[in-house]
């Protein structure tokens, strides 16, 4: 019982990160109808930036931990968003209306480029930083087993909740949110009504990258260990989360992220940690096989 509860907490904080990355996939898919294969690398860049900021803060003697966290979030979000914007401008915008394979290949090329770029500039070795927070709240203890909600995990869940709330507000209440949804529905009509579609698409990439950056910071906070290749598997899992939740649906991405987090935590704990990636991948294939629209997605009518 206690063990299961602990896995629930682990799954929750893991799923929060997948959910944040998955939103980037789902938003980009919603607006330009393609998978942004470079999104996993954007997340990896976010994680590298937050390690850099962390180390800089330590070197400069920046004080209390919450300030360090804020600095990490700020620096990571700013630069990662810039990368997200640049990826769209360089790899996708020139390809509007190109054969359908072209943007996919361009995306893969971008992904290969970014991964090698970080490897070459920052080295192939693992980067590890000491935990920002140690300890946590003990929720339950029996005999010799304790269920703890680590401070880092708690921060991850809280920050994700705040970011999600802000994001939900932006999508439903602001002018950008309306324009974003309008472009998703019908980009041509949106353009006719005076919406700058290119700008909206750019902003979508920027926001997706910013959320991935938050996920990167959370990874550093929770595990403290990253390397240049983390974007690859995290990308596949977050994409699985997006498909599971229903691609194109933002709440679906969050739900899918949480489910994938739970599956991974429980699978690792009860079955075999080596095959946890196989488990999430099998979910992807099963969802595509039996419910391609995902849990919250709308049916995709083929336009003829």
């Amino acid at each position, binding site marked *: 019982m206690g063990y299961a509860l602990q896995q629930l907490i682990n799954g929750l904080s893991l799923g929060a990160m997948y959910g944040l990355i998955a939103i980037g996939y789902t938003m980009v898919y919603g607006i330009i109808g393609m998978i942004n294969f470079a999104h996993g690398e954007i997340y990896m860049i976010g994680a590298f930036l937050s390690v850099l900021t962390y180390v*800089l803060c330590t070197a400069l003697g920046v004080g209390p931990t919450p300030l360090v966290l804020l600095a990490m979030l700020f620096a990571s979000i700013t630069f990662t968003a810039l990368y997200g914007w640049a990826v769209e401008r360089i790899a996708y915008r020139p390809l509007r209306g190109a054969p359908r394979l072209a943007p996919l290949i361009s995306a893969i090329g971008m992904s*290969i480029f970014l991964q090698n770029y970080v490897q070459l500039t920052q080295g192939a070795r693992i980067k590890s930083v000491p935990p920002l927070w140690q300890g946590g709240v003990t929720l339950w203890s029996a005999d010799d087993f304790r269920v703890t909600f680590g401070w880092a995990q708690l921060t991850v869940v809280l920050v994700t909740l705040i970011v999600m709330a802000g994001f939900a507000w932006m999508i439903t209440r602001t002018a950008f949110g309306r324009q974003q949804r309008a472009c998703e529905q019908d980009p041509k009509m949106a353009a006719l009504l005076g919406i700058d579609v290119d700008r909206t698409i750019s902003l979508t990439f920027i926001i997706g990258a910013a959320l991935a950056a938050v996920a990167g910071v959370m990874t550093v906070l929770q595990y403290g260990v990253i390397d240049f290749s983390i974007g690859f598997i995290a990308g596949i899992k977050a994409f699985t989360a997006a498909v599971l939740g229903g691609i194109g649906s933002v709440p679906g991405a969050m739900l899918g992220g949480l489910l994938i987090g739970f599956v991974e935590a429980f699978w690792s704990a009860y079955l075999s940690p080596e095959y946890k990636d*196989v488990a999430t991948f099998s979910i992807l294939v099963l969802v595509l096989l039996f419910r391609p629209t995902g849990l919250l997605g709308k049916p995709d009518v083929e336009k003829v």
Partner: protein
Amino acid sequence: MTAAALPAPSPLALRLRDALVITVLGGLLALPFIGLVTVEEGGALAVRTRWGAWAMTLVAIFLGRLAFRAALDAWRSRKPSHKSAAFSSTDAVLRRAAGTSLLAVALLLPIFFADNRYVIDTATTLGIYVMLGWGLNVVVGLAGLLDLGYVAFYAVGAYTYALLSTQFGWSFWAALPVAGALAALFGILLGYPVLRLRGDYLAIVTLGFGEIIRIVLLNWTSFSGGPNGIGNIPRPSFFGLPFARSAEGRTFHEFFGLEFSPMHRFIFLYYLIVALALLTHALVSRLRVLPTGRAWEALREDEIACKALGLNTTTVKLSAFATGAMLAGFAGVFFAARQGFISPESFTFSESATILAIVVLGGMGSQLGVVLAAAVLVVLPEVGRQFADYRMLVFGAAMVTIMAVKPTGLLARREPTVRLNPSRSSAP
């Protein structure tokens, strides 16, 4: 209205301003990765600055942007004169000539480098990549399906031969068709659920599948030897004659009355891959002009129109996918036999990425282009370490650039599979 009164900025000023803007943005992007670096010092990370490298990056971006714009403008202004829509037959003649000379070089290479194991080895590696490139070309270039886990089928072939030969004593030639069939079966099993859906899903599922195969091979130790791999894989023999100094039966050099040389085996392996690659080429070129191949290309062009004409698009996709997988399986058998040792290390995503880069850079659908791209990708890293390090970086960037500048690759120069007026064609 007021803007019209101002003198228009000169093209050079515009170009400089554009390059400056790009440099500022690029400099910002590069700052945390090139300007700063985290290094391990005394067990903890520390930040080091690299202002020199950063400044050089800025200069490189500025000059690169100027050169890129100039090249792009030149290329675009050249375009109208080149706009002949009909397929030119001189082009076909040129390509045929290039193909023939490449074939001659391939066949004569061991004569000139009979004692140079390094050259023969590199050429053999090149042969494997050409074969893999031609196989993936069926899937990506002809059928227009993006397969990001192609290396998985290569692994299926390699492990099939490794296990059949070490566990059951199968010979290379017996294992070859079985491994190809098994790889094709994997392709069908994986493709069936996914190929009915959008193309992007196929890409991500194959990406995941490639990774899964690697994880399974890494962890299922009793089956695959885990990270230690499988060793002592028998080398192919020359129709039963082994390449050894001495053996129970007759050896290759005894049978032909030659003096024993270890080079015999390397040269034999080289000719074997050349033969396999040529077989692949013959198969793919022939399939292309058959209904199957035309259906693949039609699928790439417009899936909905295919359905409206009564083509079962799932079958068409599966046939392309399975054909590609089978060819990768063949290449895998050869790889295992040549190395004598295989482990999951050889089947990572970066291998899939390399093969895809070969197909994309070669111009999707072009068989000759694949050879040239494979040569660049395999031979350049041999020339110098710096090429090896920057290889994937450059090819990633090249994939993006090619898609932006000429997304159809070399498709514009596609040779028709059939002509109504064959007299106008130079091809017999």
